[in-house]
């Protein structure tokens, strides 16, 4: 029955059954901003079949009781422009707004940013800093896991049996919480990150609580720093301590050298950006 090369299921049930029937042959396409680059190389792949997930209603952006739900297919532009995101999760609005260019942000989705699994994915870095949970859904039900866990889980385990990324659930910032975001780019406009540092923490006076500091571009994936937690949790954010975090955080990184920068530079710059984001929340 499945003799088409392109499917656009209208609800999750259809999507699950299509995906589990098609198995490995299925390619899930949403905004297309990564996949189309591959297709535009104009190579024939007869066995691949596209399943478009843009019509599943997965583009919600809504806040209930201090929790933001953002659909996997919400575009970066919609997230950036959303008043509620700008108010309650300004870090996410900021990170998404600095990615790529306006036309790409109109198409690219936050879910896509997660599954393409890029070293410097800014959206993923921001989600991690915010403590976001990914909801995957399949016929068997929904699974929730923190973004950092999702990133480090093999694909077969996290998206089995026709499962897809459905949405993100993110605790909104409360009045006593602070955030910081720094991104180093090669040029001002339309530039991938060389590296990014993002942070979320609750400040009790100058005492730092529940700190989540994330480095992007400093390892195979963005990651939540353990050093920051160890050194800062429950302590006052003094200049000395900030310097220590900036120095010791390098033990967690595995900065690579690529066309954008060398590992040497990334390590130098990461320390500067760590200082800067911590100063932003002080």
């Amino acid at each position, binding site marked *: 029955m499945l003799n088409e090369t392109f499917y656009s299921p209208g609800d999750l049930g259809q999507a699950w059954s299509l995906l589990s029937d098609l198995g490995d042959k299925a390619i899930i396409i949403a905004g297309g901003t990564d996949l189309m680059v591959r297709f535009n190389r104009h190579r024939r792949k007869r066995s691949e079949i596209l399943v478009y997930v843009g019509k599943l209603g997965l583009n919600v952006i809504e806040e209930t009781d201090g929790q933001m739900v953002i659909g996997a297919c919400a575009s970066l532009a919609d997230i950036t422009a959303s008043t509620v995101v700008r108010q309650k999760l300004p870090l996410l609005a900021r990170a998404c707004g600095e990615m790529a260019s306006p036309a790409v942000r109109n198409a690219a989705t936050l879910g896509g940013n997660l599954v393409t699994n890029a070293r410097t994915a800014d959206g993923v870095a921001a989600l991690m800093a915010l403590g976001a949970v990914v909801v995957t859904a399949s016929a068997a039900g929904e699974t929730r896991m923190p973004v950092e866990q999702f990133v480090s889980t093999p694909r077969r385990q996290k998206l089995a049996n026709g499962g897809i990324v459905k949405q993100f659930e993110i605790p909104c910032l409360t009045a006593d919480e602070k955030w910081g975001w720094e991104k180093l780019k090669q040029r001002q*406009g*339309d530039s991938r990150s060389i590296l990014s540092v993002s942070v979320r923490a609750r400040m009790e006076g100058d005492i730092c609580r529940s700190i989540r500091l994330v480095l992007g571009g400093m390892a195979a994936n963005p990651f939540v720093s353990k050093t920051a937690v160890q050194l800062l949790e429950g302590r006052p954010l003094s200049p000395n301590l900030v310097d220590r975090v900036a120095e010791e955080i390098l033990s967690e990184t595995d900065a690579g050298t690529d066309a954008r920068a060398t590992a040497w530079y990334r390590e130098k710059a990461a320390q500067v950006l760590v200082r800067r984001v911590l100063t932003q929340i002080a």
Partner: protein
Amino acid sequence: MPLLEIKVNGRDHQLVVDATASLLTVLREHLHITGPKVGCETGDCGACSVLVDGKLRRACLTNALSVQGADVVTVEGVGGSGRLHPIQKAFYENHASQCGFCTPGMIMASKALLDENPNPTEMEIKEALAGNLCRCTGYINIIRAVKDAAEKMAHGGGDR
């Protein structure tokens, strides 16, 4: 093969396309609408920029079937027959093109901006054009043209 129904510059089309075909391929190869240019096919240059249901998109990164039923506007559809849109007029009068290859994309990006924000600051113009590369002009006259168009549109004008 999948069937695509799409409206381009006010005209309805029905055509058979590959599952992986981009909107750019459909516009250029199937419909011979050549205003959107092939500059990179990786989404980096912006020469293929078009409006899809009013939103600025890269035609090269837009899977054609994913915009089934959409209303697409290219540079050819901005002005209407024999008339220039104020943005087109402003580009012409402000010497905003040199080789002209990026111009169709620049005009679409400018239109997307001014449709949403009729009175942009210089920084907002630069941000809106950040994904459209131009190697000839250094962007100076393009930015000037967008400002000029915004002013003229505020006062209603701009026929050829």
